[in-house]
């Protein structure tokens, strides 16, 4: 991979790191997810500059150039993250549903309680 490509990828990753930290600062992201993303950014930056690792990765995936291997790795990671977040959203949706039902059931029925004809 050329020095220019490595620099461009690194700049993009650093911009991402700044964004993630800013999201934490403005309370739009929790510490756990910020750490997760910073870990991913650090790993990707490391992989970008580790020529030997990328060559092995390209050989393993059967990719023509190391950059393709890195792209493939990124796509696989995004897929895993999407499934993870879909599971997380499904769990939160169920919890929200259970909570809202409990709220509806705990507030006494209005107005008379007994509607028998």
């Amino acid at each position, binding site marked *: 991979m050329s020095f220019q490509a490595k620099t461009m990828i690194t700049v993009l990753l650093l911009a991402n790191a700044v964004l993630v930290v800013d999201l934490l600062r403005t309370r739009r992201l929790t510490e756990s997810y910020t750490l997760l993303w910073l870990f991913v950014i650090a790993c990707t930056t490391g992989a970008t500059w580790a020529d030997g690792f990328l060559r092995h990765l390209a050989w393993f995936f059967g990719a023509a150039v190391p950059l393709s291997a890195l792209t493939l790795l990124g796509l696989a990671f995004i897929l895993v993250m999407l499934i993870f977040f879909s599971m997380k959203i499904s769990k939160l949706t169920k919890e*929200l*549903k259970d909570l*809202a*039902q409990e*709220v*509806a*059931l705990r*507030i006494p*029925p*209005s*107005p*008379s*309680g*007994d*509607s*028998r*004809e």
Partner: protein
Amino acid sequence: MTAMAGKGIIVIPVFNEAENIAGVIGEIRAEGLGLDIVVVDDGSSDRTRQVLCELPVQALSHPINLGYGVAVQTGMLHAVRRGYDFLVLMDGDGQHVPGEIPKLLAGLEEGADIVIGSRILSGSESYTIPPLRRAAIRFFSFLAKALGGVDIRDVTSGFQAMRRDVFSFLAREYPVDFPDAEVVVMLGLKKFTVAEVPTQFRRRERGISMYSSLGTVLYYPFKSFLASVIVLLRLFRERREG
């Protein structure tokens, strides 16, 4: 009064039915069925909640809109916790005719665990069902028979009466949206007796149906198919795990 022994309740899930619900409640009361009525407001954004406060019914309100299935499940949970013996489920848009409730209850008395009011069965009186909808009903009825062994012509009908065993079971596990075919499959696989009786249905006069949007038309068949198959897979797993 109904001849059905035990304490019964009519569950009516509603979302933005301010224009229809008072009429529906009035009709039910005019029938003199001797059943309690609970209306579950699924976070309506119109005047439904205010209208319900002025009606002689038990009203439960979701703080947010959660979907038709969740509103039904809340009504079932309420019935379980308040010790009801049987439950009638009907819509709040005026399509279901309260005068037909005794027919459903008669089915329970004859031994069924759940009775579905049909628009399609011979002897039914219904508005003309659009061809696409009719085809979907046929397909899902076939699916319910193939996967759940339940021979029902109108699996998408929300006009139902059920015994405590059934609504106690469904109160634990009920689909969030479009609880049609998969519920029938689920009940069939759990060996509940599902019966069907011909009933009268009317066309909705005011308000918007939950089946009216293009997104729903596209989403509904795939969701129902997937959910029905998943019910089967879950049961296989349950049986394998003992």
